[in-house]
């Protein structure tokens, strides 16, 4: 019998494979290490990220699900809630207790009840509706708030880039 973290990750993998939510594909990078996943997230329709497919990497801690995984986009992203290096900054990924932005309610933080699927769905909704209050990427937050057109142009360029199209 393997460790509980491993069993839970296997169960989640199975669940995600059997019943994948729309616009999300996720699974371990290699079957002999279930603690590193790759996820592909489709840009939500009706937003400036529409049509894009954004690859991300999830790294799970050994004590998952007691601690949250870390998520990082492996493509270029320009978004108020994504750091320049691709790390995603949403409250569901923060363990109660550490609050990088100092405003999150404990109710929306990580708990073992959350899952990979919920994280990815939150990320999709984050793409659709950036939270410009917490600026992981301040430039993007300001641009999103004040110069939406410019932001949309950059986002569409990123979408084309992820698809391998000429920008």
């Amino acid at each position, binding site marked *: 019998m393997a*460790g509980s*973290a491993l069993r839970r990750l296997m169960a989640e993998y199975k669940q995600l494979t059997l019943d994948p939510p729309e616009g999300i594909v996720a699974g371990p990078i290699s079957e002999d290490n279930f603690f590193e996943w790759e996820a592909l997230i489709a840009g939500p329709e009706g937003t400036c990220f529409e049509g894009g497919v954004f690859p991300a990497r999830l790294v799970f801690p050994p004590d998952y699900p007691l601690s949250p995984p870390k998520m990082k986009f492996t493509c270029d992203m320009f978004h108020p809630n994504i750091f320049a290096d691709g790390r995603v900054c949403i409250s569901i990924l923060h363990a109660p207790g550490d609050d990088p932005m100092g405003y999150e309610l404990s109710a929306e933080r990580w708990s073992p*009840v959350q899952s990979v699927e919920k994280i990815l769905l939150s990320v999709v909704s984050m793409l659709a509706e950036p939270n410009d209050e917490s600026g992981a990427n301040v430039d993007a937050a300001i641009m999103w708030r004040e110069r939406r057109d410019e932001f949309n142009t950059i986002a569409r360029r990123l979408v084309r880039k992820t698809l391998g199209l000429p920008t």
Partner: protein
Amino acid sequence: MQLLISSVCMALTSAVIGNAYYQKQQFYPAVVYITKSNASMAVIYIQFFVIVFMFGKLLRKIFLGTLRAAEFEHLLERFWYALTETCLAFTVFRDDFNPRFVALFTVLLFLKSFHWLAEERVDFMERSPVLGWLFHIRVGSLLTMLGILDYVLLMHAYNSTLVRGPSVQLVFGFEYAILLTVIASTAIKYVLHAAEMRTDTPWENKAVFLLYTELVIGLIKVVLYLFFVVIMAKIYALPMFVFRPMFFTIRNFRKALNDVIMSRRAIRNMNTLYPDATPEELRQSDNICIICREDMINHSKKLPCGHIFHTTCLRSWFQRQQTCPTCRLNILRTPAVNSTAMPRAGEDAAAAAAGNPAPAAGGAQPAPAPTSQTPAADTNQGRGNGPAAGVNGPPPTFAEIFGEANGLPNGLPNMGGLPMVPPPMAPVMPMMSPFMMPPTAFAYFTPPFLPPPPMPLDLAKFTDEELRAMEGHQRENIEQRLKLLNNINLMLDSAGVMMTQYQNLAARLQLSVAPQIPVNSGANSSREQAAAGPAVYDKPSTSATARAQLETHQINSTPVATVAGAEKVTIEDLGADEDDEPSTATETVSLAISDADIDENSSELSELRKRRLKFLEERNKSSSGSELRTTVE
């Protein structure tokens, strides 16, 4: 790349040796020539390191196979730190510096790297879905080999220190002793993991064993480090090079100690406070533990909020946080009240255990508290509502607050502490009946009245803030708590002022009213009186209406009681789903309370009262709510 370097190195070495032979023609003079020439020695050193590196690769191939990317990364990172520390160690022993010394340090670093790799491998066991027999053979032989080597080298260092007095061997002896502890903990972990793999069911106590292993090994390491630093400081200089590892070891030890304490507390809480889930309850729910996503067949616990989890899953979660994973109900707070309620008020305990998640959870907060305290209150009342009884009432409860707060270990003391505030209200409320009793008594027990409904809500509000403030230091908690108590105190004072007004009124109203009220209070249950109380005190204190109001109070006492009941339910609800409700009321109340800081004068009492009315309005939009208002105004 590596191939290139090693072949270049080979070529250089052959060139150096060939050159020496060519010049001296004989073996011995050639060796002397090489050792005398710095350039040649440098080449020989580099060749030596290349050979060591290749040997390491060979051993790695044999014992570990290919390294995973993460393993390699960690190895590299730790290697650079270790190298820096070795260089620092060189500064202490610069007098002993010679090729033999360098060789010994190389061997040490070499062995260290394998210890780290073995550690990583064993940690990886828990994450890997399938492990073949090759893995076990490799890890087993690696651990044995490293253990033997460590022991031999430790003994060598020990003996040479005994024979030749303290030298650089002291450092080696110490380093190998540390490595031996590393091997020991790795081996224990390996055995535990392997044992778990052999069984088909999750091994519940493994986490506990691991925790204690960590604790014991951590303790040994800390002692070793301290011992070593003291010896080194006495004989040589302060050993800078062990400060970093020592710091990390002490930190890990502290963490392990903390984990053990938290774990013990979680286990104790689980065993004493929460009932095992019954088969029916399991059947009613979907029977999946949401923490590990596996079926719950046995060993499940039910929290006061009605959510059911595996005992082990819950325990490991409680080690980090004392909330329900699903609804984030603070379980430290709830049971704190619940446990006091259980022995005294059987029916509450039964209700909590019976199921009905919401009422049970809600009831656990404000409801059991009054019930649990009622016996005491009743006896007080039986004794005849005297001032003595009243005076006896409040102080112990405040002491309780502090006691409770101090009693709780660092987790979430405030949450445990604050809910205890309602109880003081509860016993005091019944005593309102004798409010025609000697005036001195009034100032004492009437006050808690004004705030009763707000308190629990306000606490819910405070917990959120507190939680944040609390994560850092215990001291802050106490400060926060003191602040809250201060607020209460202020409100008591203000209520006291109000009471004086009432006394004046009562004096003007003649004593004819007085006899009626004790009779009335005797007839009604204490709960009703308690409920009636607030209504009375919410009345505007003009002398013209006062008499009429006192009478309406008697007539309306029963409806008011129901109103109070309704109000109570809403409070409980709020307590139960504090996360779901936006709790605007909470804010109002906290506003009122923070304002109470400022409002001390009786002129501003009306303001307080208005706020409270607004609050009640918001809470009870229902008809009963409006009834209360009509009664009040």
